[in-house]
């Protein structure tokens, strides 16, 4: 009986010790999505898609086949929509042609037969209003908690600016709706590439130059799968201020903000007694900046005393600059400490780059149990330590032996 009770206690104890350990940080990261992943494919059906330069097939037929393959291989939970641009107006009036963008398939669970019929009916005709199509796609996808992806497939540069597609992309990103635009170019043209990389950089997306149908299909499939794999709850929007007193108070979680060139942003984080502060900051370089750059995050007290700083700098091509800090105090004070986080950057814009909107900042704030400084261990370690102990032991033995002999000889004399 007692044995059994002990066994139960031991088992419970063991699992209590091991379970948190096994669960580890990985399970803490499992996203809890509340919405289905949403993707919209935006296809350029302008006149230039008639060109037959992809392994001898026309661009539009390659794109149509890729779309069919993607629709066939679509993950069950993903909601897909399709929007086209330049598909209906065949005239030469630019004003009308530049409004030519429609949603072919509303965002939702896909009816495969219907989607394929719609794709098969596309004929290359009109202009290339990329900017307008992006705006439309953002509306189609709506607002929500999770990341939504637009996959833009085009072969020509936008002929309808304004609105400039890259500016539109930046606006969409700045709205905080957490939209990512991945772009796929079907022609090896310098201007197309520059425009599409600009759109991708502005929204944290990617650019790919497809040279044949297989590459195009594989890439679209990868992007659609990525939408299902990596969409998480979008971070909370927050607006840092320029002083500690007025700064927003953050609790544990992920936040988004925007920071202009050489701007300082303040955030406040209460750190309860017995806890340590953990914070990371990533500044996204969504536009061309000068060669050397850096980001600095400092934790200060309310009166400006610096507690700790994290910094990162670089000079190459990069997507984000990240820095992080840990801070804790082992004082006996039971009151929470209010720590100010100051985020600043040493980025300089290249000539002609938009400076009015800030660059995306991602802020991760958390607190965890404080890890106290280990007391001096009280035990030794290493060969030198053992050697010393042995030598001292040997010496003590010798001395004790001599003492014994000396006493013996004294006794004999007596």
């Amino acid at each position, binding site marked *: 009986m007692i044995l059994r009770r002990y066994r139960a206690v031991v088992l419970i104890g063991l699992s209590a010790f091991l379970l948190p350990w096994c669960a580890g940080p990985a399970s803490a990261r499992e996203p*809890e999505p509340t919405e289905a992943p949403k993707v919209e494919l935006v296809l350029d059906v302008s006149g230039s898609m008639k060109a037959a330069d992809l392994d001898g097939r026309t661009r539009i037929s390659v794109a149509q086949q890729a779309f069919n393959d993607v629709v066939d291989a679509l993950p069950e939970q993903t909601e897909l929509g399709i929007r086209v641009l330049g598909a209906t107006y065949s005239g030469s009036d630019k004003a009308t042609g530049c409004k030519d963008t429609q949603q072919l398939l509303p965002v939702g669970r896909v009816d495969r037969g219907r989607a394929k019929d719609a794709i098969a009916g596309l004929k290359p005709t009109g202009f290339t209003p990329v900017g307008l199509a992006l705006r439309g796609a953002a509306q189609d996808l709506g607002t929500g908690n999770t990341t939504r992806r637009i996959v833009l497939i085009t072969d020509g540069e936008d002929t309808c600016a304004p609105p400039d597609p890259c500016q539109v992309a930046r606006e969409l990103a700045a709205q905080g709706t957490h939209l990512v635009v991945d772009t796929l170019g079907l022609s090896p043209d310098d201007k197309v590439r520059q425009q599409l990389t600009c759109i991708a950089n502005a929204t944290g997306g990617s650019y790919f130059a497809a040279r044949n149908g297989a590459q195009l299909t594989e890439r679209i499939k990868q992007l659609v799968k990525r939408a299902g794999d990596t969409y998480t709850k979008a971070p909370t929007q927050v607006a840092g201020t320029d002083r500690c007193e007025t700064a927003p108070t953050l609790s544990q979680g992920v936040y988004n903000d925007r920071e202009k060139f050489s701007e300082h942003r303040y955030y406040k984080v209460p750190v309860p007694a017995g806890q340590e502060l953990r914070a990371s900051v990533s500044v996204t370089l969504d536009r061309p900046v000068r060669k050397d750059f850096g980001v600095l995050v400092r934790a200060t007290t309310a009166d400006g005393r610096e507690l700790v700083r994290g910094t990162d700098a670089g000079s190459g091509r990069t997507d984000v600059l990240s820095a992080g800090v840990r801070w804790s105090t082992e004082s006996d004070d039971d009151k929470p400490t209010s720590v100010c986080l100051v985020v600043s950057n040493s980025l300089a814009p290249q000539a002609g780059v938009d400076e009015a909107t800030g660059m995306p900042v991602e802020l991760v704030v958390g607190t965890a149990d404080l890890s106290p400084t280990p007391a001096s261990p009280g035990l030794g370690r290493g060969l030198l330590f053992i050697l010393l102990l*042995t030598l001292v032991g040997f010496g003590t033995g010798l001395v004790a032996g001599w003492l014994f002999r000396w006493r013996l000889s004294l006794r004999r004399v007596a």
Partner: protein
Amino acid sequence: MRRLLRVLGVTGLVLMAFPLMVEPAAADSAVNTAGTSFLTAAPIDTAKPVSVAASTGDYLYWSFDATAGQTNTVSVAVTLPPQADRHGAQVWAVDVFDGLRRRQSCTAGAQAPVAAPADATVRMECTLREVRSWAEPWSGDPLPGLYYVRVSASELPEQDQGLPVKVDLKLASTDSGDPAPEGGDLRAPLAPPDRPGAVQSPAPNPTASPAPDEDDDLVSFDWWPGATSRWTWTVVGAVLAAVAGVLGYTLARRRRL
């Protein structure tokens, strides 16, 4: 006791994972996804190699968990696009960040090699420092928790963006078997939250802070070193000292007796 159990648990896990490490991983077990940001980094481990199709301009993110005493090595091979499509040399880089997104130094390996226009592949490697069990809050020492790996082209001719590449990545890890030689441990691993946060009202309620841990109020055991290798060293040293003492004693006593 808890540490001892942990150490036992680690040893068990390592033993269980060992056959997985030596066996060549089957192709179907390969990870074929990559994230595009810290938040979406794809989890990897030593048992599964990574193989993804990507484009030259992409920034690819993966994450892995590390425990104290581990030394991790990331090896990457990038199969570059055909020579005819390229316009010059490219610099590729593998960057490793800890759970707080702090850049980690590599102790060995070609972290940012240059791919000449004639090269068909480029190989990168980064061996990290050994993960500590504890560090001062303001130090950049590697701590247990999540690590991020980023693979990207850090210098690239503008015309060469968007070309197809294949990225193969492998994570290897060695364990020193002595997770806390200096004592001390990190109470919670560096596992960053990925949920959206909540902005609190301007005047936070002072009573909202959680009470400090109750177990600190009783007798403190901070001086107790826990299950570290120091116990073994000290005990062995003590035994040797005792033996040497007896030896010295007998030597000195028996002479001329």
